[in-house]
């Protein structure tokens, strides 16, 4: 084939291949960094899937952008027998997007589906407090004895033990209600009761949603919402600056530039997230609390926060973020004191120093710089640190297996409650995959955490959270860093959008685009 003909052929192929639907034009435009795993809420193990499920589906309860628990499909609920039994009453007149009315049976069936081993969701733990749920998930029972349908309008849950936070568990995307029988292509074409109806999904490209006019709550202000898939943070910012995204999260490395150039567009809010270095409490010299305390004294956290993290955070003196009940910023902290660190190391018999590995991910460049600063600070007191760089999957695997001395990590809230920063992170039954990457184990802490979970009285529970957090902090299972502050830019023509403290707290219903 001659070159001109080859070129002509290419040109034809090109014109045929072009012409997909335009992605712009939607009233509101949001984005995700990667394609959702699925639009089946039973598979919502990642943030994009959870956020998309929140648009299309409802749970019995839900969160607002500030993390407050609100009624969802259940307009009221009661805790009975000291928090061992919950009865949720369904809101009347709710319809799925396909017109079917919501029944209590849909709720029961949706939750069974999440627990069913055949679903392969992998994230059924929010339902595990229900009596018989674990047996059903393991395939040793044919029904979940703790879920009972009361007529067409109520569902009752019997739990294995009293559990105060249970209504918050039901606001997580995985507990969304889907119609029964479940449409075969639910994962690709979701049908829910939520404020947005599904319109289209081009994998790795965009999703499109339209206003659900018959939504049981206040329907969305805007007609359409598109969600673009934009992996590169700098491209996300460019898309925003070109006016094609309604909001954008500002990367930590870009903080200064945006603060200087577009201060009026910026919004900030403390996130329900903690950045920390898990110290492996079962490994070598780190078994000694004095060594772990020495590490906390050796690292100048406020300075690193200011210089490397753009000041976008609050120094952590505990694991519970200060915006949650139980969080405490007034606690006496491990102030930066290299001499004290050396004294503690000497007391632990390590006057000659020690060698440790600090694992980080290759993708998180900002945390990588933080690691270098930590390395320098620890070097100054005689702790020689080797930084091990791996991809996120390998780093997490090593930390879960207890093969890393230290690993720098972020913990994002699944539900806005102090329990989410204690039970998974410090209870001994959460070792490794459960979230306790420090392998911290203390029988007193364990029993206090369990007591708190059983306490229905909010004030008492909050006091317990504070006590537990303090107790754990004193034995320094982590190098405590900070609670990040989220920074977003919002287009001047967008109103009604608030930074959600929890990923599923923003449903885009009150958001409007000025004409």
């Amino acid at each position, binding site marked *: 084939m001659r070159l001109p003909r080859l070129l002509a052929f290419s040109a034809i192929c090109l014109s045929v*291949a072009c012409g997909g639907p335009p992605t712009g034009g939607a009233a509101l435009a949001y984005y995700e960094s*990667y394609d959702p795993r699925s639009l089946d809420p039973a598979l919502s193990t990642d943030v994009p899937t959870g956020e998309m499920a929140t648009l299309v589906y409802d749970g019995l309860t839900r969160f607002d952008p500030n993390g407050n628990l609100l009624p969802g499909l259940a307009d009221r609920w009661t805790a009975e027998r000291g928090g061992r039994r919950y009865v949720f009453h369904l809101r009347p007149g709710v319809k799925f997007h396909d017109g079917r009315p919501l029944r209590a049976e849909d709720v029961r069936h949706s939750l069974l589906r999440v627990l069913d*081993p055949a679903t*392969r969701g992998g994230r059924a733990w929010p339902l595990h407090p229900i009596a018989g749920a674990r047996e059903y998930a393991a395939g040793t029972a044919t029904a979940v004895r703790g879920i009972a349908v009361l007529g067409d309008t109520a569902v009752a849950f019997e739990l294995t033990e009293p559990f105060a936070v249970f209504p918050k568990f039901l606001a997580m995307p995985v507990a969304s209600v889907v119609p029964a029988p479940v449409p075969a292509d639910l994962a690709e074409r979701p049908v829910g009761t939520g404020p947005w109806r599904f319109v289209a999904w081009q994998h790795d*490209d965009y999703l499109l949603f339209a206003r659900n006019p018959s939504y049981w709550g206040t329907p969305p202000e805007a007609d359409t919402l598109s969600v673009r898939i*934009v992996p590169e943070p700098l*491209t996300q910012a460019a898309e925003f*600056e070109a006016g094609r995204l309604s909001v954008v999260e500002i990367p930590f490395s870009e903080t200064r530039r945006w603060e200087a150039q577009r201060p009026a567009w910026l919004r900030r809010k403390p996130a329900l997230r903690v950045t920390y270095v898990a110290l492996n409490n079962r490994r070598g010299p780190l078994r000694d609390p004095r060594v772990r305390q020495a590490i906390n004294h050796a690292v100048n956290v406020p300075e690193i926060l200011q210089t490397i993290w753009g000041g976008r955070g609050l120094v952590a003196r505990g694991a519970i973020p200060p915006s949650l009940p139980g969080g405490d910023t007034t606690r006496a902290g491990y102030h930066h004191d290299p001499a004290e660190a050396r004294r503690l190391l000497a007391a632990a018999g390590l006057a000659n120093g020690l060698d440790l590995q600090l694992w980080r991910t290759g993708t998180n460049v900002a945390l990588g710089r933080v690691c270098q600063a930590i390395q320098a600070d620890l070097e100054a007191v005689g702790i020689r640190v080797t930084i091990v760089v791996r991809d996120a999957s390998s780093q997490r695997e090593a930390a879960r297996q207890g093969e890393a001395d230290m690993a720098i990590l972020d913990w994002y809230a699944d539900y806005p409650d102090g329990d989410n920063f204690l039970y998974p992170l410090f209870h001994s039954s959460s070792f490794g*995959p459960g979230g306790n990457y420090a392998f911290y184990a203390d029988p007193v802490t364990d029993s206090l955490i369990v007591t708190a979970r059983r306490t229905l009285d909010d004030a008492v529970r909050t006091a317990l959270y504070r006590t537990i957090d303090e107790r754990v902090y004193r034995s320094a299972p982590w190098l405590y860093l900070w609670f990040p502050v989220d920074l977003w830019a919002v287009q001047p023509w967008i109103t009604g959008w608030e930074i959600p403290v929890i990923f599923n707290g923003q449903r885009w219903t009150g958001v409007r685009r000025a004409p």
Partner: protein
Amino acid sequence: MLGRRLLLTVPTLAGVLVVTFLLLNVVPGDPVADMVGERADSTTIARLRAELRLDDPLPAQFGHYVWGVVRGDLGRSYITGRPIARDLAERFPKTLQLALAAMTLAALCGITLGVLAAVKPGGAFDRLAMLVSYLGVSFPVYWVGLLLILLFAVALQWLPPSGSGGPAYLILPALTLGMRSIGFLARMTRGAMIDVLSSDFIRTARAKGVSEAAVVGRHAFRNALIPVITVLGLDVGNYLTGSLLTETIFSWPGVGRYVLTAISKRDLPAIQGSILFMSVVFVLVNLLTDLVYAKADPRIAYD
């Protein structure tokens, strides 16, 4: 001849299968960890591992996989549960579109630059063209892509920054992806043309009064094409297997990004399926290049 060549690709692809499979099993990281998310219980992890046969001995796992491939089944993604063949079929047209655009651009610009530069070696245009080609080969894709976005999408607002849609979406990624080829092709074409232009038959053509345009355009150019086709063929093979960086910077929903996501999530069947698919494409493009040689130069024949 074609049948024999096609048959020869089978051992190549089998080798790819084995190497990919072994490599993926040496790499640390647990695919189930990404299925269950940040917080999970060990029972669920153990059950999923068993269901996915991850605890079977390696030869058994491999046998199971190959048996699927032989029946034309690339399996399902661990993460999404979708058939991998369908995922690839959905994304390949996008990669093809970008590859053709980049190749067209590269061929047009690169060859033109090269031919014009060769007409007067050492002249002003030649020096300019070679400077352009130096820059094209040396600049990192990532940097150029972001600069193009900043200039044309943010500052001038002429083109969309990223995404896919109409032809306007194609320009920046095609330029970014094709840039290296433009530079490379320009140098290749220039070199080949200078060689050919100094050969005897060109002197003969000039001596019998053929116009300079016809000498350069018809006689010299056709003879200089062989090395150019080689380069073009290799580049097309590379483009068609997805361009990780360009597709990521420009949010282009192609094969490259699919593989990248699969790797970061340790989605073993998706990685294996994609690599196999890419190898097939690469082998076929190379085969095609060889056939084009024979067309361009009748002296080349395959038996």
